[in-house]
């Protein structure tokens, strides 16, 4: 008898989500922020797949997860390009120091 239910997955994903948010909020380094975002996305993906599995939705949930992964890839690529540009301009990628728009 399998005791693992949907709730377990949901708890895992929500904890992962919160950790991702924590990373996004606390880190100075842009790449670290990106990593936090990846965590958030993955948390969401877990939910997708878990709901698909337990909710009898067929494969659509997995497909959504697949799309998220694709988007994450695109996002990562763009983000890295931006980070590189920022680095070229400011010689660092600490986002708390990059506040030219502030004033």
């Amino acid at each position: 008898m399998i005791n693992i239910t949907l709730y377990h997955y949901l708890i895992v994903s929500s904890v992962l989500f919160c950790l991702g948010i924590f990373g996004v909020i606390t880190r100075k380094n842009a790449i670290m922020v990106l990593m936090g975002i990846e965590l958030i996305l993955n948390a969401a993906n877990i939910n997708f797949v878990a709901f698909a599995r337990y909710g009898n939705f067929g494969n659509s949930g997995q497909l959504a997860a697949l799309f998220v992964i694709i988007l994450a890839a695109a996002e990562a690529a763009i983000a890295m390009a931006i980070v590189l540009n920022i680095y070229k301009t400011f010689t660092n990628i600490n986002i708390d120091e990059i506040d030219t728009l502030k004033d």
Partner: protein
Amino acid sequence: MTVYDITFYLFALITLGSAFFVVTIRNIVYSAFFLLFTLFGITGLYVLLSADFIAIVQLVVYVGGILVLLLFGVMLTHKITNVQIKSGTLQIIPSAIAVIVLAFALIKIFLSTNWKTFQLTAQNSSVQGLGVLLVNQYSVVFELLGILLLIALIGAASMARR
């Protein structure tokens, strides 16, 4: 406590534990490596959820693609000779409180919701099903995503080149 259960807990622990280190360790390279573990753990969870294709994609794309990309980013933006590849943190305490409270709130919501679930049945590989869906029901989304990816790549390339 079945094997399945144990496996789940194991993967969950790997995932959450390394994720915790990802967001707390100051050294970027280290956190990147911990991210690898996190992703790996998530892959395991996918497998447990009978999402074989997603698991493979997760491995290939995340671990093989995104993570490598991030590492390249780390390398390119921090001069190797400069050993200080560390990332500073800010507003740790309020963030921690907020996140913990949020986590509890979320968990509470999830748990208090009465999800309508079905009994798990054994499943075959989902690859075929996904393939059919991709070219039938979601073909437009698929195409669009393809175009999006292409644009993103070209854009990233052109941006990075400057």
